[in-house]
């Protein structure tokens, strides 16, 4: 399989800088997700890897060799699009066998590999159907089979599940994950759905405004978001301003001890964050450390848990507590911010997408 490297990759459309100085190394057999809101440059990046568009500057390397000069059809980077794009004039077998036919593979061999691949995507016996006779999930599975059958160097998936309904999406995720593992194929996919990225990818690259914000294993985005925007994208908007000295951050609602792992920026103004599911309600008079007073604004019972919106100092926090916790609106409660879950994030809430700025 193939290792992919993106080196100082940039793409400009007119005045708009869609992708800015992107650097990322993807190991052979690894599955990486480009995650971000629409218009963040993730699809543009994918299209530069396929060669369907040329980078304005920077390089794309497969196994250390630049592929920028190689046309798409000879790169071996096969794309599965959001729309299944099955050729409407061909049946399922012809669609899946398309890449092999183009490569001049003989008919018997093609037929054998097509059957094998249709079994792998769990769609046997549909060879003679036309694309429009299949359901949405079947169409996308045929599209996947068509991409995999040519044994691509890199498999690129551009929101392949976005058009499917929720249940189907879950089974398709599992299917894609197991096939990717089984074949050991290097795969890069693009999604705006953080849950999907976390479920499928070995590593996630989160992009805003054409810039990669943070790269890492899925759990780092939950436990260690680099900035307030990253935290918010992963549904954490619990922030508290304070002044740090050593392991202690003084906030308007009291001193909070932080994990000494975070020796980052020394002292000064910082923003603390704790994920909604890590904030714990405690009884008054408890001897728990790192407690802060809060005023309950709303309580929503969600069945498996209770969603509490509370004001801590001047900030509004979301807290996900046990279903049994059921305070009244306006009630004063005490929350524990467990030391190991307190994380200091960089404030980038004011950073504007400066699309017009020249690099």
């Amino acid at each position, binding site marked *: 399989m193939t290792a992919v490297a993106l080196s100082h990759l940039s793409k400009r459309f007119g005045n708009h800088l869609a992708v800015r100085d992107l650097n990322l190394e993807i190991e052979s057999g690894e599955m990486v997700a480009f995650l971000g809101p629409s218009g963040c440059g993730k699809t543009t990046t994918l299209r530069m890897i396929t060669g369907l568009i040329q980078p304005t500057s920077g390089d794309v390397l497969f196994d250390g060799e630049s592929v920028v000069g190689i*046309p798409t*059809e000879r790169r071996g980077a096969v794309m599965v699009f959001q729309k299944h*794009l099955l*050729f409407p*004039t*061909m049946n399922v077998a012809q669609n899946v066998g398309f*890449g092999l036919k*183009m*490569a001049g593979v003989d008919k018997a061999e093609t037929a054998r590999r097509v059957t094998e691949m249709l079994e792998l995507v769990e769609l046997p016996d549909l060879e003679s159907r036309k694309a429009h006779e299949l359901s949405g999930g079947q169409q996308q599975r045929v599209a996947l089979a*068509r991409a995999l059958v040519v044994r691509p160097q890199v498999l690129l998936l551009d929101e392949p599940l976005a058009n499917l309904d929720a249940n189907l999406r879950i089974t398709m995720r599992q299917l894609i994950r197991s096939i990717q593992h089984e074949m050991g194929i290097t795969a890069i996919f693009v999604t705006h759905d953080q849950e999907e990225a976390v479920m499928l990818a070995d590593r996630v690259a989160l992009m805003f405004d054409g810039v990669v914000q943070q790269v890492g294993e899925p759990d780092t985005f939950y436990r260690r978001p680099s900035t307030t925007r990253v935290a918010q994208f992963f549904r954490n908007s619990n922030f508290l301003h304070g002044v740090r000295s050593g392991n202690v951050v003084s906030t308007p609602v009291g001193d909070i001890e932080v994990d000494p792992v975070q020796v980052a920026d020394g002292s000064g103004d910082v923003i603390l964050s704790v994920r909604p599911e890590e904030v714990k309600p405690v009884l008054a008079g408890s001897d728990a450390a790192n407690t802060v007073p809060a005023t309950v604004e709303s309580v929503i019972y969600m069945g498996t848990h209770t969603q509490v919106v509370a004001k801590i100092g001047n900030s509004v926090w979301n807290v996900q507590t046990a279903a049994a916790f059921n305070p009244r609106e306006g009630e004063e409660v005490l929350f524990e911010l467990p030391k190991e879950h307190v994380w200091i994030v960089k404030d980038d809430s004011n950073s504007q997408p400066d699309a017009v700025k020249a690099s």
Partner: protein
Amino acid sequence: MARTTELTDLAERESLRSRLKIPLMLAPAVGIVVLLFGGGILVGLGQSLGYFPAIGLNEFTFEYYGSVLTDSNFLRSLWLTFRIAATATVLSSVLAVGFALVLRQKFAGSRLATFLFQIPLPVPHLVAASGIILLVTQSGLTARLAYALGIIDVPGDFPAMVFDEAGIAIILTFLWKEVPFVGLVVLAVLQSVGPQYEEQARTLGANGRQRFFNVLLPLIMPGIMSTSIIIFAFTFANYEIPLLLGTRFPSTLPVVAYRLYQDPDLALRPEAMAISIVLAIVALLLLIAYRRLARYAVR
């Protein structure tokens, strides 16, 4: 019970009315078409079969068909007609696809180019024929230009394209008129399809030639098929262009038929009608065969 029957009656009457509604509404239009068109065909068919009371012919006979079909000049004209129509159809389809592939790209002046491409559409065929005459006769613009540039010694050296047996000027006129017609249909299909299928094919390893023949052509084939059927039917039965630009002999069948029809000798009328009917039947058979073939080819 009585009430139920009443209701069923009512429902039946209602459904009868709704079933009759559409045919009744269509009746006036259909009636006119049947009367004018069908009537004309019936009269023509009658005359071709020797039923022409106005000049005292009252007996049905296949004599005229016999004399038409055994005439070697008829076959020569039929071949000429077919050759011109088939050449014009094939060439205009091929050229139109080429133009459409270029015009779908975005380039400086692509909108102007598309506009210019469409100009022949509203121009009448007769005007187009006149233009072609001015352009390609031995005293025409091209010949004079070639002479001025020293490519030919005298204007008479310019190849005869008008009133020639190959029918070059006729075909050129048809092309000038029909290429934009096919081209616009193909362009519309290409634009609605977009670049996505080709991009998909590219990532699957298909080069330019493979993408055209395996992906694009099958997608635009239905459009080409239906427009080329129209063009073939039109050029096969066209009368004024071969009359203006063709040789005196052999002439295309529509021209032959019309000459016979216009002859002061009414006795030639049945033969003119026989040619027209044969022309119509041949065209119909060719179109059916073509449709079958094309459908098979697309699959």
